[in-house]
């Protein structure tokens, strides 16, 4: 199930490597011996029923969740403990949350420039230029002076993607990015993510959007009860799932 360290079968470099990771919440074993390697430019979609640990796993990669056992490397570097080294590494990992989490006291433009200014030490004109480029790319440049609460959910989430991209991350984590959105706004966010995937961004996406998984994923990880139970191409996963858990999961999607 795990890929050899240092590189992947096709020879591309490993950006994220997760090895033997275990995590408990009290008596609850939420992550059970997780092994995963994500290559440069790869789009990995993590599927699974609620409570299967997929969000938790995603959040361990920039240490928003700590782990009890195992090791996580980003671009070959072991994830540090708290402190400056961890902050530095987090800057390399973009994160998009289910609930957007735009900074409520900052304008749209300031949300995107904050990281480049405070973490990268960029000059203000340079940071604003970068931010405007990225806001234009996600299609919300005309909202730059508004406050987050004035935008729709879909717009906020696209700003959140621009905010993460402004750090020029090595990998982007998406933690159920469309789960809090009204149905008519889901596509605008998924389209942004698909174009990002086409540009070669390395992405780990936790989602319930099967259409996106089929369209954009290079690989599907299926999790249940804190374990990775299946790992295959989208084609293989959706047409010929190997495990009963995956078959059960997919059958429930289709009957609704």
């Amino acid at each position, binding site marked *: 199930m795990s890929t050899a360290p240092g590189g992947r079968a096709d020879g591309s470099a490993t950006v994220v490597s997760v090895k033997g990771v275990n995590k408990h919440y009290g008596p609850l074993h939420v992550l059970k011996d997780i092994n995963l390697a994500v290559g440069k430019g790869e789009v990995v979609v993590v599927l699974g029923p609620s409570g299967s640990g997929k969000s938790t796993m995603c959040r361990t990669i*920039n240490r*928003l969740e700590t782990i009890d056992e195992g090791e996580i490397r980003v671009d070959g570097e072991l994830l540090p403990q*708290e*402190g*400056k080294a961890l*902050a*530095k*590494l*987090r*800057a*390399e*990992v*973009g*994160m998009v*949350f289910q*609930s*957007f*989490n*735009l*900074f*409520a*006291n*900052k304008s749209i433009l300031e949300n995107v420039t*904050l*990281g480049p200014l*405070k*973490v990268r030490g960029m000059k203000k004109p340079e940071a604003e230029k970068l931010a405007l480029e990225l806001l234009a790319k996600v299609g919300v440049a005309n909202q730059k002076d508004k*406050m987050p*609460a*004035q935008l729709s959910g879909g717009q906020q989430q696209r700003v*959140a993607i621009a*905010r*993460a991209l*402004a*750090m020029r991350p090595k990998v982007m984590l998406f933690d159920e990015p469309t789960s809090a959105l009204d149905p008519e706004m889901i596509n605008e966010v998924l389209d942004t993510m698909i174009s990002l995937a086409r540009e070669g961004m390395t992405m780990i996406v936790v989602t319930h959007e099967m259409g996106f998984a089929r369209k954009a994923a290079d690989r599907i990880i299926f999790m249940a009860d804190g374990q990775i139970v299946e790992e295959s191409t989208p084609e293989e996963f959706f047409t010929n799932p190997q495990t009963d858990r995956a078959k059960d999961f997919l059958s429930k999607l289709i009957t609704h």
Partner: protein
Amino acid sequence: MSGYLSLWEQYGGQMLAAFWGNIQLAFYAAVASLILGLILALMRISPVPSFRWVGTAYVNIIRNTPLTIIITFGVAVLYGVFTWQLSSDFNLNFFQIAIFGLAIYHAAFFCEAIRAGVNTVPQGQAEAARAIGLGFFPAAQNIILPQALRGAITPIGNTLISLIKNTTVVAAGSVAEVSGLMKTMIEFRPDQGILIFLTIAMFFVIVVVPVGLLTTYLSKKLAVAR
């Protein structure tokens, strides 16, 4: 009425000086305790366990100690026993010890008011700040505290009101302020007892009511839209 006017003739200058004393005590103590309270609040939310421990211990010890005891300790022990001299001027020294005591005491309450404000900031704001690589202080300065302080305006205002009124407690440290003067005035002019009380009570109402109005106004105006 003529009795009341003669009271002003007799004590007017002292009263104004004493009122001014209370205002100065309140002002300096408020500035000092807000700064100390902010530091304590940062300690209590910091990722470092020993800082959290110190912050929690401070708040729990100081908040549960009566202010009169702290002021008496300052004057009788710090000055009386350890001959603490914050100023070479005798009266100014008591005055500064009083500010010190007021600040130490109210810092615990400001800390808790600010921490209550921090609790109004959704967890996701801190996570998003960390996710773009901001450390504890940049995240606190740019994201958490600006939102927390807006949420904490009302409890901060309440603590400020308590502080202004608690400046009368430092009479225990023989500092020239109105409640000490009130006692003297009533002793020498018992005929005006009720009016003396009303005059001094009115002074506090006049000072404190605007603080309450201002905090209500600010908490509405600065509320963070989510």
